[in-house]
């Protein structure tokens, strides 16, 4: 992607909170109309990155631009060009849903059709409900509606489905997919692998303040060899080097006390594993087979799970 095509550009962003290095040189670009994911565990630097792009924080060094503007100095024009769903925010309990939409529409000088927005986000029946009486999913849908009330070019969604149950999470996914169809540029931060794999055109995996991998979900998974993950619990510790020599095994390491094998021929690997364990007086306590995912990429790069 050329510099001129990128609507969001981040170069070597650094940020410290006291002694803690929250960002240690984060760089990426987002094309217009792209849904870009920042995937990483809690404390990786996702929210710090997105809040710098929203203009809520300043960086210690590096540059960030959104639609050609510095978020920290962009002023009202910048604010009108972006919409955001913050990780932690709220509205007064006694404001009604349609009043909240009306309020923010006026603040942005927008003439958006509020009824259409309510309908689009499934809030029409709740238009007169108080904010304090909404469910978690309804509040999040309202937050997204507020982020879009002024039809921004770029939308930042910071962990939009955190804490929501799976059913509600899927409703939010449908909304984000609709944003993609509308051609919105979306930066989505998440620690849910399914979310990143399903929704994002490209994903940057971030850990301990640095981007450790960045590509389409498909390309990232193929980097780990397109292998199947086999997780086993054993009665006794086994040597990963020995298991790595088994039929079809591309990689083996210990993660959280379990042996995690990546295999290109799962059935053959399992047979070989059982024979190996019998020969060494070891016992298989549990076995789990997982289709290739971004978690495998993360484990391969960091030796840890995405969600501890």
């Amino acid at each position, binding site marked *: 992607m050329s510099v001129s095509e990128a609507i969001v550009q981040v170069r070597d962003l650094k940020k410290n909170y006291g002694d803690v290095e929250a960002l240690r040189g984060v760089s990426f670009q987002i094309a217009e109309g792209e849904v870009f994911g920042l995937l990483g565990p809690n404390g990786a630097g996702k929210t710090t990155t997105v809040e710098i792009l929203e203009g809520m924080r300043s960086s210690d060094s590096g540059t960030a631009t959104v639609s050609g503007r510095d978020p920290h100095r962009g002023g009202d024009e910048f604010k009108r060009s972006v919409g955001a769903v913050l990780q932690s925010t709220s509205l007064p309990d006694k404001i009604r849903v349609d009043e909240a939409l009306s309020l923010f529409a006026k*603040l942005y000088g927008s003439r958006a059709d509020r009824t259409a927005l309510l309908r689009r986000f499934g809030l029409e029946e709740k238009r007169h409900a108080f904010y304090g009486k909404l469910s978690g999913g309804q509040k999040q849908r309202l937050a997204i509606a507020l982020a879009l009330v002024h039809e921004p070019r770029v939308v930042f969604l910071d962990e939009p489905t955190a804490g929501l149950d799976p059913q509600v999470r899927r409703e939010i996914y449908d909304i984000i997919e609709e944003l993609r169809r509308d051609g919105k540029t979306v930066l989505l931060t998440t620690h849910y692998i399914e979310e990143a794999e399903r929704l994002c055109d490209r994903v940057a995996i971030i850990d301990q303040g640095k981007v450790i991998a960045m590509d389409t979900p498909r390309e990232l998974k193929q980097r780990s060899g397109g292998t199947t993950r086999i997780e086993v619990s054993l009665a006794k510790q086994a040597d990963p080097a020995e298991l790595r020599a088994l039929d079809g095994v591309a990689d083996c390491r210990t993660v959280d006390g379990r042996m995690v094998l990546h295999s290109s021929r799962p059935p053959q690997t399992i047979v070989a594993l059982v024979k190996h364990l019998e020969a060494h007086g070891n016992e298989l306590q549990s076995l789990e087979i997982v289709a290739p995912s971004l978690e495998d990429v993360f484990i391969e790069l960091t030796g840890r799970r995405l969600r501890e």
Partner: protein
Amino acid sequence: MRHVWTLTLFRLRLAMRNRAFLVFGIIIPLGFLFFFAAVFAKKGGPAVAYVLASVLAMSVMGSFWGLSQQLVIFREQGILRRFRLAPIGPGTMLFSSILSNLILTIPGIAAEIAAARWVLHMNSFGNLLSVFVLAGLGAVTFATLGLVVASVANSMMETQVINQLLWLSFLMLSGIAIPLPTMPGWLQTVALYLPATYLVTGLERALIRYASIEHLGAEIASLAGASLFAFFVSQQLFRWEPEQKMARQAKLWVAAALVPFLLLGAWETRQGERLSEARSIFLTTFAERPAQRAAPTDAPTPPDKR
């Protein structure tokens, strides 16, 4: 200005849906009015006006608590963060809270004056225009002082502590709970350095001595000046985020916001006649016999008494 009015309407709507507004804005002040009248103004007459001045001042000072707590709550709950994303600045947020507070103060003032008229049979209201101007200006002044407190406090607990210290000082030392002339001389001098004193004595002069706006220059100038300065300070110290903390030294800005009254207090101590006039009003109001009243030193004779 468009955004100020949008936010003001939003705040008014929230307030009207909060029962605490009815209780603290109207019911409790009326309760105090009737209580003070029962204790200090049993015989009615100008004593009711004297009590009304104290209660109006107390109602108006309620802005101090209300706005400081609301700003801190909005910050702690992450509500301010959401507004930060919108194209509005701290000045707009603060001005809308002051304006909405001013509007919300009016029903309480009107209710107290109506109660004084129809329940306590107060016959004359002095210079009503002066009363409303002073009460309105007082609401703005104490609202901005409350916003300064909210700007420097790091939590609701800190806000409550600072509010209590200031509130009790204003209540006990400014002539609201205890008539100024009955306090020891040195305390009366201390009172001259407090903003509530100028509000109370100004309301007494307006209600009892019919002081016009021209004759309330010191009160109006000090309250207006303090409002502007406190607004500037609160705007500079405004924080959107709960994790942005203020250093301890920042609390001194609250004292800085009272500088106009320190200057005025120094002048009044040396050359002013505020205390002597307050004493005169008190004595003539609570005299045992309807004795000859001292002629107002600087106010015109009311029309119906010519």
